[in-house]
């Protein structure tokens, strides 16, 4: 198993942890954090491929991560705002109770 694969496995596991959190926990904040974890896993992949990959376009992996970070920040801000709105709407933030859109 070469280092690249190790990195990929690491990111996969992190992604899985984030996914499990998102699926298992009912607290909206935790779900959001799980999503953040998955994002970070993706970033790990970018960096890994940039680090071990062919040095043709050296910086693109990093640039991707920079954008991903920016988007993550925006996503966190909006997500937290949504959660607060949700809390104001239904005195708690349990996601499985926020089902007013069901058909």
């Amino acid at each position, binding site marked *: *198993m070469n*280092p*690249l694969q*190790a*990195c*990929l*496995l690491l990111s*996969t*596991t*992190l*992604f*899985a*942890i984030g996914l*499990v959190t998102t*699926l*298992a*926990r*009912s*607290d909206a*904040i*935790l779900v*959001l*954090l799980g999503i*953040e974890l998955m994002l*970070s896993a993706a970033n*790990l992949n970018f*960096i*890994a491929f*940039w*680090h*071990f*990959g*062919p*040095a043709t376009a*050296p*910086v*693109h*992996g*990093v*640039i991707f991560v*920079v*954008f991903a*970070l*920016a*988007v*993550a*920040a*925006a*996503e*966190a*801000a909006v997500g*937290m*705002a*949504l*959660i*607060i709105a949700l*809390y104001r709407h239904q*005195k*708690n*933030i349990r996601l499985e109770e926020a089902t007013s859109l069901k058909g």
Partner: protein
Amino acid sequence: MNFAFSVIAFLILATAAAAMCLRQLVHVALLLVVTWFAIAAFYLWAGAEFVAFAQILIYAGAISMVVLFAVLLTRQAPLSPSLTPAHPGRVVAALSLGGAVAGTMGYAILRTPLAPASAAGPVVSVRELGMELMGSPLAAVLIVGVILTAALIGAVVIAASPGTTKEEESS
């Protein structure tokens, strides 16, 4: 380097996993901060200095702050275990799905012949990075700027009410 890598990997996974099992939301948030730091350490190890510090600045500095605020603003009772244990069926389903994803992906990773092209990875200086950013992905930079502004305003609008102050705005 393998030693450093394994330590970092262990830190990342352990803290993440532990955070996901904790019952106290604030603890989760703080433990995840450790995870962010570990990830930043991974970036450092991979030679992406700038990204590492940006990661700390954004995740530890901003996002975790926002999370903590969300926790405090949506908290029923002080130190209340805000997390009721999820009912087992969901947990089982979640674990199985997560395992499936991890397994399939891992299988795919392991059986694809991936050889690191460069043993000693490239090192990018901040100046190069800036030059590159001002190059082809300039449009993307602008778009990201627009996205951030929109998110900022949107956050304020969504969370705005006689109660809330500017905290969401500042992430």
